[in-house]
């Protein structure tokens, strides 16, 4: 599904050069739930951004379904992000000017889906995360857990093959965190969605199929588990 080969990411300023990722080789299988752990600044989010085509690697290759995607033009990258990938962020990144329904419809707008179809799909996605009663609310009228559920609905509304989740429970209390984690596990186990999740929470990571540990921009350890719903 996703194959990263000899991936390097270097951040350069006029006075300093920081190696964020070094010689990363990683393959994510279709239908897999992979979690990535490591201390802050070890390159987890950078790796996820590069996998999600939100950032460019300094060198190395990214294959998505066997196709190299690192150097595609902006419009093509946007199309892939729209069709194949769904994103969930720690800070939700919902658009404050749009209500819940409009936020969830967003990926479908860029896919040029008709208004009626968009609404139908968005309501179905909100139903899936248990938020169909809040469609007219604005993000600032929701709790953190509700916002993250809206973000998940937005990520899944276009039925992407891969969901990239960057610390999706990082801003939530343990109860809310569990709820969000269960939704992700269901998506993986029931819908077969491939999920790559960055997390600081060991117990959540161990619920996924495979855990990769990162340190100083390098992959240092891999553990496999039987994915489980709590």
């Amino acid at each position: 599904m996703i194959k990263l080969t000899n991936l390097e990411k270097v951040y350069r300023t006029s006075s300093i050069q920081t190696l964020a990722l070094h010689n990363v080789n990683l393959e994510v299988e279709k239908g897999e739930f992979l979690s990535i752990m490591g201390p802050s600044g070890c390159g987890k989010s950078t790796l996820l951004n590069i996998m999600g085509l939100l950032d460019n690697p300094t060198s190395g290759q990214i294959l998505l379904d066997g196709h190299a995607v690192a150097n595609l033009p902006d419009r093509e990258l946007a199309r892939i992000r729209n069709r194949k990938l769904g994103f969930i962020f720690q800070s939700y990144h919902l658009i404050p000017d749009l209500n819940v329904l409009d936020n969830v419809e967003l990926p479908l707008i860029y896919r040029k889906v008709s208004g009626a179809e968009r609404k139908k799909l968005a309501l179905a996605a909100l139903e899936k995360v248990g938020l169909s009663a809040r469609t007219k609310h604005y993000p600032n009228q929701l709790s953190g857990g509700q916002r993250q559920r809206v973000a998940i609905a937005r990520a899944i509304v276009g039925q992407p093959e891969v969901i990239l989740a960057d610390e999706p429970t990082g801003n939530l209390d343990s109860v809310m965190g569990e709820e969000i984690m269960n939704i992700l596990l269901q998506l993986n186990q029931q819908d077969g969605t491939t999920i790559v999740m960055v997390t600081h929470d060991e117990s959540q990571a161990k619920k996924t199929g495979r855990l990769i540990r990162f340190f100083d921009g390098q992959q240092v350890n891999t553990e496999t588990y039987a994915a489980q719903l709590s």
Partner: protein
Amino acid sequence: MLRNYLKMAIKVLLRKKFYTFISMFGISITLAILLVVTSFWEHATGEQAPEVNLDRSLVVSRMKLKDKRGGNYMDGASFYFLDHYVRKLSTPEKMSFYSFPGTVSAFIGDRKVNLDRKFADAAFWEVLKFKFIEGRGYTAEEVENSQSVAVISRSFKEKAFGKESAAGKEVKINQDKFRVVGVVEDVSFVRYHTSGDLYLPVSLDKGFQKNKNILGNYAAMLVAENPGRRKEIQKEYAAMMQQVEIPEPHKFESAHSHADTYLASYTRTFLGNDETNTGVNTLYATIGLIAFLFIMLPTVNLVNINISRTMERASEIGARKAMGASSFSLVLQFLVENLVLTVFCGVLAVGLAYGAMEAINASQFIEHLQLTINYEILIKGMLFALFFGLLSGVYPAWRMSRLQAAEALKI
């Protein structure tokens, strides 16, 4: 897609009320001022009754004598010059000679009023299309016979006769009595070729035919068959000027006068010269520069606001990119937002301009001034608004769209 951009634009504007107010304030006020100024300009120089057919008319309003010591004497033309030289031109289809307005006093009951008096020939009523409220213009025969007839303006008629009809009645100006043959709609004083309260036959001018000088107090309007034939009149006029007998040749070396377009008749004196430069281009360039700088003020302000909002909207930009927005679609979105804002500004500006014009008209600080928003000005205003939108939106939108998604999501 465009519908979604519009929906988003309206949502952003409604939810960011302070930003919307600040942005709209500068642009709307600027546009409203431009609309009012344009309306003044149209009022002063545009085609409006009674000065119709300006596109095929030429004006003779200045005569300049250069003396041998390098000095200039400048005034209107004399009736003698117009009658003796200009009347002989063969290229104009019609022509009319008339004096510039001069102030005279009249008594209405025991109340003294000052009036603008204009002497004009009979052709004046044919060349210029006054709106007659009563009666008619005086005839060539009445002029020929120096009959004491007059055409008066509506405001003078109302002062002198109230709501009663004035036609056939007498008005007394100083010691002279005139029979009113017609009443015309008021003309603003800025249209000095036609404005006046009292129009009298040119033969009643005391200096009529006596002044053999070429400097005087008269102007002429020459009408060509069609706009293209004005050049022929100008050519014939220039050739005629070569034949003009210079008065007091020991003192003056040359005489200069031009058959100019309406606007050039104003600009030549201040911005042009006696040769080919009428000054019109200089005027347009100056007005264009001032208008451009004037427009740039709120535009730069809006660019500044938009750029500073880039950081505020970084999260949105990152999220949209993650959801599949290309840089191009983001540019379009932000541009539509800006265009919607400026179109709102345009509508508001038209409202403000309308209010301001009504207030100016009501105050009558310029007598008989009637500023109006016409379709042309409205369209110009909306084009200004779109121009604002594009000018202030393109660069910030491009900058926003260039923001790296990963970077934007970190902010």
